[in-house]
């Protein structure tokens, strides 16, 4: 992967070479990569090309697939998923994983509704309801994330299990709090976040875009970003080099939690309902999307743009197969196949770049 980076880099800084032989070796390696890069399917954005290919392959057979309202549709489906996946990406970069995101969505949805709801909310009807609700929802996300991070960094528990248990707990809590009921009658100003739009641009798009840009900048430009990658690469080395590993790791999980909460706001808003089972089924889509995009499960590797592509692909597949009216099980199988295909592409690319 890294050798791949150097091919991309414009300004290659020459450093004293050990001997001519080695130099020749390097160069030959470059020529090779350069060749590899011309092939779209070994490029960093292979999944993106795949998406486009897929779209044009199906468009003629699928009435409405290429229509504008469907485009809008795909986006509104994509946005919340993207937000969650972005949070997940940050965690994956540190070499961790966050299975608790879906339950976080449900829990913060319920809590938010309990604050805002017109009939049974604590602040029902008050003009502060919406703001308070949003704050509470984000708070829930932050708290769950912080808990995960703390358990992982302080008690050194494996992220997989920690977040698995938080998943069980948060969802159980959400259902228990509502005694299985959904909560309706949320303030219109809140629902607007999920459905409304300024001119033609939906708020959801604005929110997501802002978040994506923010995360992109953080990962690629900021101190915290560099630290996150460093932890993913080699946590011990990071500690010795003075990286506040504990704090940074916790930050990653808090970000993931906040993203889940943000997604929950959009979901809840467009559902106009606080539901204790909100988004329960998207976990595998979230992780799948990030991984399909090219983010590594072993840490140190991942980008916002990659995840955007991954999410776009997954959503497009759902949307298109759905419009073809294919049966439930068929969609599932295709999805599984696609995940494997993407992984294959990635493996193939790495092998090419490794020059083996």
């Amino acid at each position, binding site marked *: 992967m890294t050798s791949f980076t150097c091919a991309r880099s414009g300004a290659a800084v020459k450093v004293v070479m050990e001997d001519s032989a080695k130099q020749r070796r390097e160069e030959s390696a470059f020529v090779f990569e350069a060749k590899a890069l011309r092939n779209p399917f070994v490029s960093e954005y292979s999944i993106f090309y795949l998406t486009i290919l897929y779209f044009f392959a199906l468009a003629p057979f699928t009435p409405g697939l290429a229509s504008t309202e469907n485009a809008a549709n795909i986006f509104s489906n994509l946005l919340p998923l993207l937000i969650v996946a972005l949070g997940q990406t940050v965690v994956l970069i540190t070499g961790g994983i966050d299975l608790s995101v879906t339950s976080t969505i449900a829990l913060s949805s319920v809590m938010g509704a309990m604050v805002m709801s017109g009939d049974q909310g604590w602040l029902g009807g008050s003009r502060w309801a919406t703001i308070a609700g949003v704050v509470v929802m984000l708070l829930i996300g932050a708290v769950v994330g912080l808990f995960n991070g703390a*358990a992982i960094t302080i*008690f*050194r*528990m*494996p992220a*997989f*299990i*920690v977040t*698995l*248990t*938080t*998943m*069980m*707990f948060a*969802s*159980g*809590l959400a*259902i*228990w709090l509502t*005694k299985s009921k959904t909560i309706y009658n949320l303030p219109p100003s809140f629902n607007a976040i999920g459905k409304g739009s300024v001119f033609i641009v939906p708020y959801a798009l604005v929110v997501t875009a802002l978040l994506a840009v923010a995360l992109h900048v953080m990962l690629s430009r900021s101190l915290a970003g560099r630290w996150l990658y460093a932890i993913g690469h080699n946590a011990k080395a990071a500690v010795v080099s003075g990286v506040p590993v504990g704090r940074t790791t916790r930050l990653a999980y808090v970000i993931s939690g906040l993203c889940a909460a943000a997604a929950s706001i959009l979901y809840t808003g467009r559902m106009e309902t606080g539901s204790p089972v909100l988004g329960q089924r998207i976990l*595998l889509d979230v*992780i*799948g999307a990030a*991984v399909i995009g090219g983010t590594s*499960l*072993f840490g140190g590797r991942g980008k916002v743009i990659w995840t955007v592509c991954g999410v776009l692909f997954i959503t497009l597949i759902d949307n298109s197969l759905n419009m073809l009216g294919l*049966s*439930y*099980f*068929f*969609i*599932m*199988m*295709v*999805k*599984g*196949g696609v*995940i*494997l295909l993407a*992984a*294959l592409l*990635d*493996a193939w690319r790495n*092998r090419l770049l490794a020059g083996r």
Partner: protein
Amino acid sequence: MKNLRDDIEAFLLRWASLLLFAAIFAAFGLLSPKFLEPQNLINILIQSSSIAITAIGMTFVLLVAGIDLSVGSVMFVAAVVAGKLALGGQPLALTIAAVLLIGLACGAINALLVTRLAIPAFIVTLGTLYLGRGFGLWMTETRAMNLPESLLQIGAARTLGAPVPILVFLFVLALAHVVLTQTPFGRQIYATGNDRETARSAGINTKRILFLVYVISGLCAAVGGLVSVAQLGAVSPTFGNQREFAAVAAAVLGGTSLFGGRGNVFPGTVAGAILIQTVENGLVIINADPYLYPLVMSSIIFLAVGANAERFRQARRGANAS
């Protein structure tokens, strides 16, 4: 050197899992005398047999630092095929053979993708999870399927006075335990999990090891599915859903590391599986508020794993100091 408090702490950590186990038993026992009756203990064993068998397979995979998310789907596919054949009036022997074959096949697919194409196990099995589930739903047209008596024999019958599920469970357990501790293959699994490169250069055929553990996992999942479905009498479209998480949880509860090389099926994984089932069982026995189930369960898993992690951490620190 060390003062008493450290000793006590060390002791508590050393036996954390067991103490937790004891505490849970004591608690349920106090709340309902019925809980500790031998019959109930047998029930717990029967009820945990399926998940335990699956978790045993999972342990093999975890030992080489892999993971198999597809076990739930494999259970489902195996159950569906078993049902179809049994309904088709095939003899029990053939049905069982077919189930084992399915397990082998599913495992082999995972294994191939993981070893030959070097795709991370997490992704491979995530993909096969979808594929398997979809395939099963397609075969059943997403309908529930009632099973004929012939198949239910496995679940109900008793041999030598012991319920068949328990026998199957014990058989698989014994086999797995012997393989892991007494055979070259077993020890080489631990070696591969400890350091794959080293294992390879030591002359171990690591690809073969990896391949086999995924096959074993698939096989166990299929058997687990059969054992479970034979007790249910029907295959519903949700059968086996999310079982992968339960299996991993059981293994990790039993002290198996997700990073490979550490763990065992006995007492480890089995204890984990039984612990989970015990809690489920106890909560019903004391007629607890249904809403509390997930809360209690997750908290207990969290505690157990936390104690384990703390122990390893201290052990490591001790090693560094010396």
